[in-house]
């Protein structure tokens, strides 16, 4: 095997850390994002629960968080991270900024997905006597599913990029490996190797997303 200047176990650990950070923050972020996106759609001008105040407040909050670059967001919320996970550093500590970073991003993507659903569907649901929750659960979300999956795919790839910066707070991961060993030690083969790993990650994620989304859409 090729010598990359670091033990293979370290590369495997970095890959595990990346996968851990991406998927845990994705799961939590998706949950928050679905709730926020549905709230935005229901409370907007044409929504069935039209509410200007909730809409404006939520919309503005999302815009504020989205305007802060991830690396700044991460160090800015360190005290909050400490409150939540008990430490400012490490892989788990990185989950807090990652969730706060990805949730508003996914919210925007999900909002578009849900807005794509034909208004007639909501009307049909109401005519059937559906409650507001039922309108969301039985009509809006299933109809938006194909598009939601593509949004999650896009979000996952965005998260993968963000995890590379999480090395700043000692979270490890593939990106951190590339920076500390590949870049700072001028280890070009390692750098190349990590880039290849990241490319493969992205390809796999995108292929899965496309596959499941088209499976749902192509009826």
């Amino acid at each position, binding site marked *: 095997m090729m010598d990359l200047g670091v033990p293979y176990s370290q590369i495997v650990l970095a890959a595990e850390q990346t996968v851990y950070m991406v998927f845990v923050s994705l799961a939590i972020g998706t949950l928050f994002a679905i709730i926020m996106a549905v709230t935005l759609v229901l409370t907007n001008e044409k929504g069935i629960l039209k509410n200007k105040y909730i809409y404006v407040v939520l919309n503005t909050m999302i815009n504020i968080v989205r305007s802060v670059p991830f690396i700044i967001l991460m160090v800015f919320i360190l005290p909050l991270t400490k409150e939540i996970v008990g430490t400012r550093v490490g892989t788990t500590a990185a989950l807090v900024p990652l969730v706060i970073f990805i949730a508003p991003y996914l919210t925007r993507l999900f909002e578009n997905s849900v807005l794509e659903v*034909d208004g*007639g*569907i909501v*009307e*049909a649901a*109401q*005519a*059937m*006597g*559906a*409650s507001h929750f*039922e309108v969301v659960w*039985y*009509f809006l979300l*299933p*109809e938006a*599913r*194909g598009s939601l999956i593509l949004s999650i795919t896009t979000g996952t790839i965005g998260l993968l990029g963000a995890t590379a910066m999480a090395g700043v707070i000692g979270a490890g991961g593939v990106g951190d490996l590339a920076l500390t060993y590949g870049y700072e030690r001028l280890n070009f083969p390692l750098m190349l190797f990590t880039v290849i790993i990241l490319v493969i990650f992205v390809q796999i994620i995108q292929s899965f997303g496309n596959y499941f989304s088209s499976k*749902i859409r192509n*009826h």
Partner: protein
Amino acid sequence: MIDFIDISKTFTIKKQQVAALQHVSLKVNAGDIFGVIGFSGAGKSTLLRMVNALETPTSGRIEVDGQDINKLPFSQLRQVRKRIGMVFQQFNLLNSKTVYDNIAIPLLLNRVDPKDIQLRVLELLDFVELTDKRNAYPTQLSGGQKQRVGIARALATNPSILLCDEATSALDPETTDSILRLLEKINQELNITILIVTHEIHVIQRICNKVAVMEHGKVIEHGSVLEVFCNPQQPMSKKFVQTVIADKIPASIIQVLQQDVRNYKIFMIRFLGENVNDNILYHINKAFDVETNIVFASVNELQQTVLGIFMVQVIGSNAEIQDVIDYLEQHQLNWQEVIV
């Protein structure tokens, strides 16, 4: 059954007040197939959507089975909505679900037992003749099939009222006809009251027993289909009715008549039902010394009743023609003079 009492609705669009409905009062009785006709923008869809409170009036009230629909708390409104089926022009089916699952949705919302859901959905599939499409997705269906799914879905909870919002307007004439037959079957076999809004007069002619004509947010004429079709009063109603019931003398015949130098008048006589067989012309010819000539005739079937329209040229002296007029009056025939 459905009572619209002095309904008005004003929309505010770009800070301008638009009156969508103005003082509309209508009564739909149980068992009716009630048609509301008008061009787009006449306010008919807005009116329909008030029955299940998808739209609320600015003033006036809607009573469904004696209940003021806009005074109900949301939970009760939902129960009433479950008793009112609705069918849409654009079908509004869930593309992510099969035909079977689309029809099952209202039952799912009603927390019906899964076994009963299956029985009911299969029964409905049979009723709308789509049993072989149960596992198809809406995008694999034709427009007519989609509307059948929409209808089955609307019937799932055994409603007493069915609202049809331009249910056939997206369909070709042949498919429209099959959907109309289905609606007729629903009215007769399941005893469901149907309120249908449309811009197609033949939909009214084909299945409705009552009709209301709307223009600019007002009901300008309403009554039984027979009344309105035999004797439309308003210009708009006449326009609609004329497209299915011909009562105009063709231009080429008018030319011939205009060159006719004899003394004559033309009468349009409308016959309804058994009157058609009364052989009125025979009696006129026998009783008076006039020459009669049919210049135009049309016979239409409405509500299993025959509507005949005859244009008769009566040639003779003024006195003799007057005798004919007296005769028509005496026999209480629906007639009017036509000037060419």
